[in-house]
């Protein structure tokens, strides 16, 4: 009997005008999105390779330079410093997340870091409207379409009069509901999966990224999360249908719920977190660090006046003062990081009221284009800066201790030069990071289905 009911639901759905629209939109949008972002990724990869190559050439040209002073100056003493390049995340094709917000080039030097303002070179229209990546298509568009596919599955049938007819037979209500859920979900999920498969095939054929091993596993996980998300909206739509008695009311309720829950709440949460859990500006922190430096300088000067400039006691005192200064600055940095972390956690938790947020966090974690990437980047950059600082100071000391003579002409070795590296996140870690959000999506699914069940048992079919 269940099979017959499901079959009837599917046939009914497939023969509807709505199904045609949903099919066309799924295919059209997912494919177009993947095609555009694949092309964009190829461009960014080319830029990345060109950048890496240019930076390598720069180092090599310096090695060959006759004037060692130039080499030294270029890298250490207030020159260009050292560059690092960040490749675009492969799965940014599907879920761009924060990938385009983070720079593709970094630079560190002993004086000013020479940053390229990548935003200057970017078309501002990209900022005005959201990136139409697969994640956006599913998050915003597929959710709406899924909801509107099933919103009148119960109340519409009541209006048409066929629900009465159905239940006049010896058919348990729970089977009817289950068949509606399965039938509705399959009618959505199959075209969605086929469209997605077509998109993945396109990526595979173009060879833009290597779809194998861990990358493929990540994609499969993203597909799983997407299916969970679509199912959530199916269940929600059915629940709304069991709460209303005519299709026009169900439509309005569905739109109301979608607008509030998917469009509004996730976007209000970070700003609320910004207000309730503020973070000092980097300028403020820099200013405070500057104050610490000035204080350290004053204390050092005092030591120099009070004691002999040389001698172990003075030396120890100076070291202690500098160490204290460094510790205070580290504490300021830590304070900033803690505040930022607290704000990020609060924004995430507030936004998780909406499944849209959970979907975004889960997919960006799995694609490694989310907050995890942001953290990796910052850590990598800090490590890069620290390593360079240590390396540069060592050579600077060598220079000074060598009576201001240049070091060995082979001092500039590519393999000893500090490099910018980001920690590669393992799939297990990605899944662990995404787990809470995946569970939340599952909970919403179960909740809506259970509620539909409860409401439908009491539903007035007359």
């Amino acid at each position: 009997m269940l099979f017959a009911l499901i079959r009837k639901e599917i046939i009914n759905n497939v023969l509807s005008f709505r199904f045609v629209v949903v099919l066309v939109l799924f295919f059209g949008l997912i494919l177009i999105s993947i095609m555009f972002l694949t092309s964009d990724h190829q461009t960014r990869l080319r830029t990345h390779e060109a950048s890496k190559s240019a930076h390598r050439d720069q180092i090599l040209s310096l090695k060959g330079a006759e004037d060692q002073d130039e080499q030294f100056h270029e890298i250490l003493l207030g020159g260009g410093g050292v560059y690092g390049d960040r490749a675009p995340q492969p799965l940014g094709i599907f879920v761009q997340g924060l990938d385009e917000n983070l720079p593709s080039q970094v630079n560190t030097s002993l004086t000013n870091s020479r940053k390229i303002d990548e935003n200057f070179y970017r078309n501002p229209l990209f900022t005005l409207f959201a990136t139409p990546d697969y994640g956006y298509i599913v998050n915003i568009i597929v959710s709406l379409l899924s909801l509107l596919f099933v919103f009148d599955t119960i109340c519409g049938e009541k209006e048409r009069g066929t629900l009465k007819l159905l239940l006049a037979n010896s058919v348990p209500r729970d089977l009817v509901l289950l068949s509606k859920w399965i039938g509705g979900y399959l009618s959505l999920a199959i075209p969605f999966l086929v469209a997605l498969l077509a998109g993945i095939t396109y990526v595979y054929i173009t060879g833009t990224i290597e779809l194998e091993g861990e990358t493929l596993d990540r994609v499969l996980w993203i597909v799983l999360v997407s299916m969970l998300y679509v199912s959530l909206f199916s269940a929600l739509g059915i629940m709304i249908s069991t709460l209303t008695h005519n299709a026009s009311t169900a439509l309005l309720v569905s739109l109301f719920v979608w607008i509030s829950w998917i469009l509004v709440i996730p976007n209000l949460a970070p700003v609320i977190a910004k207000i309730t859990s503020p973070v000092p500006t980097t300028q403020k922190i820099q200013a405070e660090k500057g104050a610490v430096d000035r204080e350290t300088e004053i204390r050092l000067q005092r030591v120099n006046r009070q004691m002999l400039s040389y001698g172990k006691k003075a030396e120890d005192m100076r070291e202690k003062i500098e160490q204290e200064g460094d510790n205070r600055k580290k504490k300021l940095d830590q304070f900033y990081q803690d505040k930022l972390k607290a704000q990020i956690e609060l924004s995430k938790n507030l936004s998780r009221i909406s499944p849209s947020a959970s979907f975004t966090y889960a997919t960006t974690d799995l694609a490694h284009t989310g907050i995890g990437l942001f953290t990796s980047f910052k850590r990598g950059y800090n490590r890069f800066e620290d390593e360079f600082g240590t390396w540069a100071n060592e050579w600077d000391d060598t220079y000074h201790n060598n009576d201001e003579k240049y070091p060995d002409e082979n001092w500039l070795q590519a393999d000893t030069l500090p490099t910018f590296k980001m920690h590669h996140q393992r799939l297990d870690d990605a899944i662990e990071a995404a787990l809470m959000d995946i569970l939340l999506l599952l909970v919403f699914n179960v909740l809506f289905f259970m509620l539909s069940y409860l409401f439908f048992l009491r539903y007035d079919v007359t």
Partner: protein
Amino acid sequence: MFFLLVRKELLEQLLSLRFAMASIICLVVVLSSTWVLTNDYKEAQADYRTNIVLNKNQIEESNDLVDGGIKIDKPLNPIQIFFKGLDQELTTTATVNSQSEPQFEAGYEGNPVIFLFPPIDLLFFIGVVMSLLAIAFSYDAISGEKELGTLKLLMSYSVPRDLVLLAKWIGGYVALIAPFLVSVLCGLVVVVLFPTVELRPQHWGALGLIMLCALLYLAAIYSLGIFVSARTQLASTSITVLLMVWVLVVLVVPNTTPYIASQIHPVRDFVLIDREKYQIEHEEEKRFQKRWNEWEEKNQEAPDNIRWSTWPLMRRIQRLRLIDHQDKINDQFLKQLDGQIRLGQYLSRISPLSSFAYAASDLAGTGIADRNRFLKLLAEYRREITTFGFQTRIDASLNDEDNRTIEGYPKFIFEESVLGDRIAWIDILFLGMWNILFFMGAYLSFLRYDVK
């Protein structure tokens, strides 16, 4: 009779669930987002004031404009409470120095969740949410009434079809925009009640014009809804068609056209441009060193103050020339980028949302033209402080002074552009055109509509 029809349409809408729903959404969203964004603005004002003081202290302490440079903060624009535009953050801080191009505070320093979920401003609310509500108010205007059976009864009376259509249009549109206008008004009250937020007459003017554009935009979407309703026999068909169109027009076209434009009209790779600039910097530096060494050799007998003042003099010339080179490269690039932007804009104007977004951001002073103006002013300021900074060094060296002073250094002034210059006539024209097109479509369709 016409007023009778309008009254009936309006009353019907006001008694409906969708009106209640729209009222709740409008009030809750506009009020909460205005309150939240105004608070955010208040924080930004505090940051701005702090930054101004910190920057002033820093520059006065360093007493040098040439090497360290100067940090400037772009004055806040209170309209950004309502229309964010191109700036993700309310505050923009840039470091301007003579050696390198203006550097902006890195966006990745703050909370990344804001990039994943940008705050809702009025552009988003009107563009996406209100347009969806416009569809909800119009999709069953004709087809729904036919399905209901009342259209037959109505048309059995001596009422001209054009009056019926016009009455439906007016009644539904007024019901749609009433809660919207009320909530925007409440939002403005919230902003005005914040003592620190100062809305000057030009801001009110801009907001007024943006609201007119919003009404034009919503009218276009609403007319589209009536048009589709007059071409279908079932409300379920109308809503399916309209939602498909809405998804394409509001969620897809504006977002994908920049990609299309970037494919058709690509720009030079920024890596290559940066390399070119780097090469020029390098060459200029070499040339300067060579010139200076030559001069020093020739003028070994010159007094100290002449020697010490010649160096910054020559340096200034070199720096200004470097800035010229860099600006020339930037201008060439921006011209190319401008071509891509224009193409993207023209392609995207098939969506009324794009036209509205461009018109609103331009009027708010947060659009592309204002961004370019800010960058240009920064470039000019860079020249100013280079000239001034080196002059202080020259003067100090000439006068054998140990203490040079940067007193009276040029300040960065960024004034809002004239409102009249910010009106995007072409986008307003497009919005008007969509209105006429869809209304005519609805009109012609309803004249032949099968009411039975």
